[in-house]
């Protein structure tokens, strides 16, 4: 019987701990247990055998840390020996029952970027090597375990999917707060793992069975696949100078039996458990039938922290999209990722649940930019993302790097579209927006759109994609072109909801195209759509009218307990976003804008700038208002009458004013010169560098920010490409100053036209000279002064 068949009908018994048993056999502190597969095969085999004889159906190969980071030269030898030891244990054990060997894969001990430095693709490749050897040497399944980070979990799972056809189980290490260390909830993990097609999922390690009960219940409520539990033998404590676990086999088996009665179907033990524990569990549960599986049929997307279920109306922010937005297009062309990030944060604060991400413009490399945008957005927001592109290659690049289960926008009823998009959804998981149009265009009547929806569902089924993972867009068309357009869209929405039992989505704003006062039409159309069953709207969350529709609908339809959401949102209903009453400035300030910037009032600075633009030229505002205000704050900082946070608040306010100025100026006219900025290779401290960037931008310089941990060659390439006259390098640690020196040498040799200024905690004026820099800045204002000297 293969493992998948066995899993369908039975309670599956895994094994227990390995480490404690090896220590008892003499494994020294700090010694790699995986080496013992080769040096002490008999001992490893005997432990596996003891587990089979205690009742285990599956033992995990002794390969928890078997990866090429730890075993550069002998990885295959270790993995093949490990599988062989487990297989011999099967042959030698006399007990009845199905027996399997799982290739055990644990975490790499390195955090993935952005929290750590390991690149996602590098992690995939490291896991891939382990998977290939495991499959080659005869493992029956893959068990990825003790993962405390969702992103690393995804890397391991992707490597397993791409390099073998074995069944895959994934178990994560949840903390006492029922989250993974990097923040994911059980529901988020179920979305990610089921989306990618694991055969079972669950929790292991970190806690005892009692403490994991809550996590187990939440997994059971969300998962349609079998749930696995492999807890520790309670919590460790010290007894007579030795570490022992506080739950004994009998109690452990009672706890697990209780969880099996709730629906857990795969059980075993982790740290502190021994064959005795598994024997006790086996005796308690032998011959019992598992609780039948139930399909949950929930439409769910997830981020690295939480899941969003389409059970009440979902708002998808539409603002990360260049269509019709001049400033956004300019940001894309200039590779100004921060602009995109701010749109993400602002929409999140406005109350959307998911962010649509579209960066498609003819003149840019969409594959690279979409991937970057998706990665970067995940550093500033924990909302799930909807990846919006017509290019399947860009779609895949972004999906790969997405830390969760994304939305894919979109597929249509065209054969070619389905053939490209469905395999991506199957591989990476995801909820797909399906447009009800096909090779013949958009049907003008309701039944035509419903027919296309049916066709899409049938095709999805062929790819193994469930109805719950498809959200139909019945296409809002402008009523200015066809007065019945809205009616058809709404009727199709209702039909798909009621007849097909599927979820729906609409790009609401299209309905009013070409008409004045679009918000009025959009918001009423949105209410009508919600009443007809709309599950999700791609919409503008900055529109107060749209948000009113949403909160009122929920309040009126009993979806807002105690009207909490409505009451909270209603505070903002009276005031349209961003407009605030400008107070009279105090006398000591030369103007209102000076006052706003000096005091660090962001919104106010933006608002006053808007007003000033009606009577002043953009550059005049910069030269007569913004720069003098910043100079004043900068001098205050040098004289220590202004503190660092105040300087930064002023800089942020000035930046807000600049954003408004940029809108009013043709692109390319805003910059006084290019300044390349980087934290040197090996160094990951960038707060100081980011402050320098902010101030330089305030003074009108174009800053090409290369980020942190930047190799010398990349710095040089950028300097050459931009013909940059100025380069700023930062290093915080003594260990990374040599990398700074190396970078300076390289740039001085190949790009002598470029002046280099350095800064960072360990540097001094003298040291800067010694390593060949042109200047040293002790803080951000020093960097601005130098830029003024060189560039004017």
């Amino acid at each position, binding site marked *: 019987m293969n493992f998948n068949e066995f899993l369908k009908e039975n309670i599956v018994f895994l094994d227990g701990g390995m*480490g404690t048993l090896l*220590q008892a056999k003499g494994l*020294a*502190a*700090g*010694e790699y247990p995986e080496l013992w597969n080769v040096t002490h095969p008999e001992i490893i085999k005997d432990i596996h055998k003891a587990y089979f004889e205690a009742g285990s159906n599956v033992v995990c190969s002794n390969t928890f840390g078997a990866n090429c980071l730890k075993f550069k030269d002998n990885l295959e030898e270790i993995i093949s020996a490990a599988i062989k030891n487990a297989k011999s244990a099967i042959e030698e054990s006399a007990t009845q029952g199905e027996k399997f060997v799982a290739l055990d894969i644990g*975490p790499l*001990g*390195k*955090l993935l970027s*952005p*929290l*750590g*430095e390991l690149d996602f693709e590098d992690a995939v490749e490291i896991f891939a090597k382990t998977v290939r050897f495991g499959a080659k040497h005869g493992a029956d399944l893959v068990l990825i375990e*003790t993962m*405390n*980070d969702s992103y690393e979990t995804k890397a391991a799972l992707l490597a397993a999917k791409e390099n073998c056809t074995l069944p895959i189980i994934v178990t994560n290490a949840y*903390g*006492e*707060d029922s989250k993974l*260390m*990097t*923040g994911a909830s059980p529901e988020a993990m179920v979305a990610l793992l089921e989306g990618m097609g694991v055969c079972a999922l669950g929790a292991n*390690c970190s806690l005892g069975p009692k403490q994991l009960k809550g996590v187990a219940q939440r997994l059971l409520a969300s998962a349609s696949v079998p749930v696995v539990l492999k807890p520790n033998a309670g*919590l*460790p*404590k*010290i007894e007579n100078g*030795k*570490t022992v676990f506080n739950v004994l086999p009998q109690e452990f088996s009672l706890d697990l039996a209780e969880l099996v009665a709730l629906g857990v179907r795969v059980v075993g033990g982790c740290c502190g458990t021994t064959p005795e524990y598994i024997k006790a569990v086996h005796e308690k549960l032998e011959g019992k039938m598992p609780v039948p599986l139930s399909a949950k049929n929930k439409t769910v997307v997830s981020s690295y922290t939480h899941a969003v279920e389409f059970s009440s109306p979902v708002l998808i922010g539409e603002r990360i999209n260049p269509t019709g937005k001049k400033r956004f297009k300019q940001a894309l062309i200039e590779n100004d990722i*921060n602009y995109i*990030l*701010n749109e993400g*944060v602002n929409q999140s604060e406005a109350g959307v649940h998911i962010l649509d991400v579209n960066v498609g413009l003819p003149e840019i490399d969409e594959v690279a930019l979409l991937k970057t945008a998706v990665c*970067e957005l995940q*550093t*500033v*927001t*924990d909302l799930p993302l909807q990846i919006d592109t017509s290019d399947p290659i860009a779609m895949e690049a972004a999906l790969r790097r997405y830390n969760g289960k994304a939305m894919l926008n979109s597929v249509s009823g065209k054969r070619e579209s389905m053939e490209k998009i469905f395999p991506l959804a199957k591989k990476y998981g995801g909820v797909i927006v399906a447009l009800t149009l096909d090779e013949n265009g958009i049907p003008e009547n309701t039944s035509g759109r419903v027919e296309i929806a049916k066709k899409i569902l049938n095709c999805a089924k062929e790819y193994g994609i469930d109805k719950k993972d498809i959200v139909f867009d019945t296409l809002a068309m402008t009523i200015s072109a066809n007065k019945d357009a809205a009616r058809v869209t709404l009727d199709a929405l209702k039909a798909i909801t009621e007849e097909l039992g599927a979820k729906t989505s609409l790009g609401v704003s299209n309905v009013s195209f070409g008409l004045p006062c679009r918000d009025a039409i959009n918001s009423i159309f949105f209410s009508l759509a919600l009443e007809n069953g709309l599950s999700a709207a791609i919409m503008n969350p900055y529109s107060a009218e749209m948000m009113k529709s949403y909160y009122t609908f929920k309040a009126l339809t009993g979806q807002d307990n105690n009207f909490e959401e409505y009451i909270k949102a209603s505070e903002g209903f009276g005031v349209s976003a961003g407009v605030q009453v400008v107070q009279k400035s105090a006398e000591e300030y030369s103007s209102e804008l000076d006052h706003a910037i000096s*005091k*660090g009032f962001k919104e106010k600075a933006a608002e006053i700038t808007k007003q000033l633009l009606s009577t002043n030229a953009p550059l005049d505002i910069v030269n007569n208002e913004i720069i003098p205000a910043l100079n004043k704050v900068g001098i205050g900082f040098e004289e220590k009458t202004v*503190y*660092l*946070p*105040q300087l*930064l*608040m002023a*800089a*942020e306010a000035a930046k807000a004013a600049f954003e408004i100025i940029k809108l009013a100026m043709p692109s390319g006219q805003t910059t006084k010169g290019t300044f390349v900025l980087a934290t040197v290779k*090996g*160094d*990951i401290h*960038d*707060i100081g560098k*980011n*402050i320098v960037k*902010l101030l330089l931008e305030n003074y009108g310089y174009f800053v090409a920010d290369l980020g942190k941990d930047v190799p010398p060659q990349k710095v040089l390439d950028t300097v050459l490409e931009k013909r940059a006259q100025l380069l700023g390098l930062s290093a915080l*640690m003594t*260990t*990374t100053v040599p990398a700074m020196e190396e970078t300076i040498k390289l740039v001085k040799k190949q790009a002598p036209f470029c002046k280099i200024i350095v800064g960072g905690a360990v540097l001094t004026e003298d040291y800067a000279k010694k390593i060949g820099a042109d200047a040293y800045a002790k803080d951000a204002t020093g960097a601005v002064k130098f830029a003024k000297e060189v560039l004017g």
Partner: protein
Amino acid sequence: MSCPITINRFNLQKPNQNEILRYAKSGTDKASLDILGECLSLAENAIAPSACYKILDLKISGDLCDFGEFSVISSQLAKNLACCQQVAVFGATIGAEFDRLLIKYSKISPTRAVFLQAIGAERVETLCDAVCQEIKQKTGKALRPRFSAGYGDLPLETQKDIFLYLGLEKWLGVTLNESLLMSPSKSVTAFVGIL
């Protein structure tokens, strides 16, 4: 290699605002205090303090500090630990989610990033105090001041041993990179002599 004692629940004392303002090089004007307040509430939900420690027998001969499971050479640590029969070695972190906040605000608001850095520094210090308090209670003995790798002549490379013997990756999810920096960034390891 026995596993260390891990503690996942700490009721840390309330943040010390003066200390945070000092770390942030901030004044006490209203605008700064407002942002500090905002950052404190952002941080509150992102901090998950946890720690683990082992108590080891100690032998000192000259500059060699022998902890049984491993040893280091450092005259300053030897001096710090003189008169101690035992030493606690611990790792502590306020968690990875706090780093997400730092990364987010270093991109969208440097002002808040500076305050968050300061809050993180204050919190992890407070956490270390709580860990020492716990060890003090468990052993019923007085403690020497904490001593970390990189202080004085105790090489930063000692981090590698501490990570290996405490299993910090497994028990706390703290990892060490090639420059010997820890992730999550607001993490500390230290030796504490037990008198």
